[in-house]
């Protein structure tokens, strides 16, 4: 290499370093910022779904991810058919399901003719963001703690917001439903405290996780002894009424007729 070449190279290198920022320094800063953004974003997301402020309780005698049995107290006989209902208080089809079949199912469960297991899900939360489905589910178990599951369940569905937004139910809607359910005095205060504390939000989310792993990602779903029932097939399209007798017969027999087995 001639000295002239060397000089030219040195000059070129000098001009480069004068002109440009140090790529390693800038790169290092960018990498650090990127890591911080991604990691703190993921941590923030964890707190978003799974509320850090929630009290994280489990319903009496129920494990995480397991369904809630609102009528366990009726002690259905060992051989009573197991009926699993998957629902979300914010899901419009679930409201329709409740209005069409709620009374029948409740009656059978109260009479101990079926063993009802309710899986409260958070499908609309995963569509819109927020955790209103989980909070609503939590508030319903709070009502069950005060002995008002049936009434509150019905009232809250009746007060379902018309549109599915991130905000979901307004806080005062829960209280309105509680009063409609007949809660008052100390019971209402205890329910309110339980609801405000988001006591069962984590539990409801654990149920949704468990059911998603079992392949149930939509709502409402009703299973009789593990077979999915196409409940829409029981609705008389003209009268817009459900065939209550046939529903009763299916639930109490524990057998879904082949033409009413849901494929999806």
């Amino acid at each position: 290499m001639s000295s002239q070449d060397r000089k030219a190279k040195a000059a070129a290198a000098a001009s480069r370093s004068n002109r440009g920022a140090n790529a390693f320094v800038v790169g290092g800063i960018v990498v650090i910022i990127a890591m911080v953004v991604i990691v703190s974003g993921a941590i923030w997301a964890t707190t978003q779904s799974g509320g850090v402020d929630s009290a994280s309780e489990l319903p009496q005698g129920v494990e995480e991810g397991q369904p809630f049995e609102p009528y366990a107290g009726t002690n259905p006989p060992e051989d009573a058919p197991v009926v699993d209902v998957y629902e979300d208080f914010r899901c419009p089809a679930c409201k329709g399901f409740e209005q069409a079949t709620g009374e029948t199912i409740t009656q059978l469960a109260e009479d101990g003719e079926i063993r009802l297991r309710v899986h409260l899900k958070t499908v609309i939360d995963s569509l819109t963001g927020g955790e209103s489905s989980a909070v609503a589910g939590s508030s319903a178990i709070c009502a069950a703690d005060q002995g008002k599951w049936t009434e509150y369940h019905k009232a809250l569905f009746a007060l379902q917001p018309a549109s599915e937004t991130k905000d979901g139910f307004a806080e005062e809607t829960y209280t309105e439903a509680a009063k409609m359910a007949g809660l008052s005095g100390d019971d209402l205060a205890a329910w309110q405290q339980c609801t405000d504390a988001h006591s069962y939000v984590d539990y409801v989310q654990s149920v949704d996780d468990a059911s998603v792993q079992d392949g149930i990602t939509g709502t409402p779903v009703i299973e009789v002894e593990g077979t999915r029932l196409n409940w829409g097939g029981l609705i008389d399209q003209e009268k817009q009424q459900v065939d209550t007798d046939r529903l009763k017969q299916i639930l109490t027999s524990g057998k879904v007729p082949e033409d009413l087995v849901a494929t999806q």
Partner: protein
Amino acid sequence: MTRQRVLDLVGLAARLVLGAVLLVAGGAKVGNPLGSARAVQGYDVMPFEVARYVGYALPWVEIVIGLLLVLGLFTRISAVLGTLLMFAFVVGIAQAWARGLTIDCGCFGGGGQVAESETKYGREILRDVGFALCGVWLVVRESSTYSLDRTLFGDNKEHA
């Protein structure tokens, strides 16, 4: 206009297309971590809990890479990452299709199970391949107009 300049403008277009898509896709998912987790879980390629955290982090990864591409900072590395991301999405969608899963890609929010008639795998794959090609262009020819690379590191990086 010189050939050089035209190619630089193509680079700018590639940066803006891939970068903007990543920014929009990440931004659409960032406010709904549960939905993002459910979308990744819908692909059924990772353990449930792993998929949850991938779902939480993915929108932020997309935003960071998208931002770097739009700004034109470390274009080649960002383009490599963006392209790999797009290929991962294509592979994910393709395996869901091949296995007969019925899911929405969840590319811009949404996601999870849908009815069989609602799947759009072919279109989703073609679209993502298109975005990946923008990335490939930048990997091969990094230089582009209006980039922070050029502002910060000068012209010497241009014709790499």
